């Protein structure tokens, strides 16, 4: 690393660091999991009561 990288101007530094220090590029799929029921009647009642959702 050069000395500039240690005392850079704000805004420029982060980009440089990200370019030169990032972990290896090795993409991995991470599918979103299904966690909610199609119909959650209990939460629907609560939401109606609180009038927020």
């Amino acid at each position: 690393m050069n000395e500039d990288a240690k005392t850079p101007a704000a805004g420029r530094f982060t980009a440089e660091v990200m370019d030169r220090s990032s972990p290896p590029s090795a993409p991995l799929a991470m599918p979103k999991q299904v966690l909610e029921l199609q119909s959650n009647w209990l939460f629907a009642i609560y939401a109606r009561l609180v009038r927020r959702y």
Partner: protein
Amino acid sequence: MSGPKLGLSTAVLFRRLGAVVFSLIVSFAATELFIRYANTDGMSAVDIFRCVLIAISTAWLAWGAALSLLGLLYVPEVIARLPDGTAAKGRTAILVPVYNEDPVSTFSRVAAMDESLERQGVTGAFDFAILSDTTSEAIAEHEARSWAQLVAERRGEGRIFYRRRTVNTGKKAGNIEDFMRRSGGAYEYALILDADSLMDGHTIVEMVRRIEADPGLGLLQTLPTIIYARSFFGRAMQFSATYFSPIFARGLATLQGYEGPFWGHNALVRVRAFAESCGLPQLSGKPPFGGHILSHDFVEAALLARAGWKVRLDPDLQASYEESPQNLLEHAKRDRRWCQGNLQHARLLLAPNLRLWSRFVFAQGIMAYVASPIWLLVRVTSIASPFFAPRPDYFPEPHFPFPIFPADETIMAVFLVTGIWCLLVLPKLVIVLRGLFTGDNRQFGGTVQALVSTLAEVLLSSIIAPLMLWFQSRAVLQVLLGADGGWSATDRGGGRLSLGDAWAASKWIVLSGILTLAFAITAAHSMIVWLIPVAGPMIFAPLVIWGTSQNAESGWQNYLFATPPEFHPPSVMALRDQILSDWEQSEDDAMSDDDAIPAELAARHQVQLASTGTVAP
């Protein structure tokens, strides 16, 4: 769903059943005592409601006692691991998510762990990735400078990485997920840490040996020990976590089998299992119940188990450390966040295909916070109950000429309170007794010192409990009414509070305490004795909060709550202390340089702002 089929051993099933039956028996006995006490003047609707509350509360307390009993009876199981001298084949990424924390403090831990791994001769198999979600530009610049220093000193180019997200999608879970999506394919395992985590290289290597020897193991959790506590409050928490928690953790380990917990840090995951199973969706609706999943760790453990991966807590793994809040207000602030996260799990109780134990764990997490408003209701209804009692009938027999006075069943209430106290305190005293026979007490300064610390911890817990009851009840109410607590950095640093700060944060508790006691004095004399242990700490809340936040590292205070790492600092702690000291010295030198002062001051100022929850733009 490519993980192996996750079985449930008969022994684990029996232990679970045993713990449930024990809790139900204790709850039944407590409710029976209460009915006999309350029935002296006839049962009102309020009394029936109190019975239900008592049944729930005592079952919850008994469950905690059951965990400690199981922990005391714990017999370690044979664990698969690679033989000594066999190098693990898989590469490991050590992930350090940071969020507006003090970079010097955090990065010095990374340097210490790297040095500790080097001493194990395995640095080539491990990369560090510091994953910054920091929102303050000044702190981010400071992070980048500290990273440059870290890489230079540890010769870490190409293996110690730093990347910053400018958009913090998904908060900490999103931060880890971002790494998995971009770089997960390069690693077999990932050790997930917190900004305040510290682990010995030997422990990290041992964890990799264990996960590599068991292809079905998706996540291996350690029990982190609290270190670097300085205040009275912090050191009490530290002692409790070091002396009692391992026993509770062993109890938990025997109950959960391969459906163990993930506490979000100081745990090793199999990257493929995590990526396949733990992509968290956003929940429909707005926070606090909708949006990103806050307490993601419980959910990730449940998802791994759902996919058939083993999730295991190995309580024998030592030298895994974390830090904790130094005062009651910071503790309550963190608790507010956890409360929201756990209550959000109500949305997931019926999530498709989860294992029954995972649903039970969600329910436990919810109960951990709902228990407080339940106890509060017990107290409120107890004060109100005399006003709802039926008129006494001294002539219940129509043709009997003499009055029959109801029997005084106060002794039943004494039995009930004593029983509840035993559920809370007895396990701790048994742990002292166990330590006497196993020799474990020697690490805590001997049995006398351990006993004194235990009694002091019980006393402090009893004083703090009514305050936490109010803080947690308020948190539950806020969440139920839809208030989002946001995402503030936890300050595990200084922590010393002024009396003014303590008063400002707790005056509503003081007022509640005064009103409670005043009401009892004027309208419910019989309740005064029972209410003083609760109302007293409430009235003196500012003094309690202020006093316990003070430094307690010298003289007799150092004797109290002493833990093994204070007697004999482990090597990784000693390494970290040395590195931190050197870096702070170089920071001070940099600050003495005229050109550097403004930037350094600004960065330090931003750290302080962020640590108090005031995140700069």
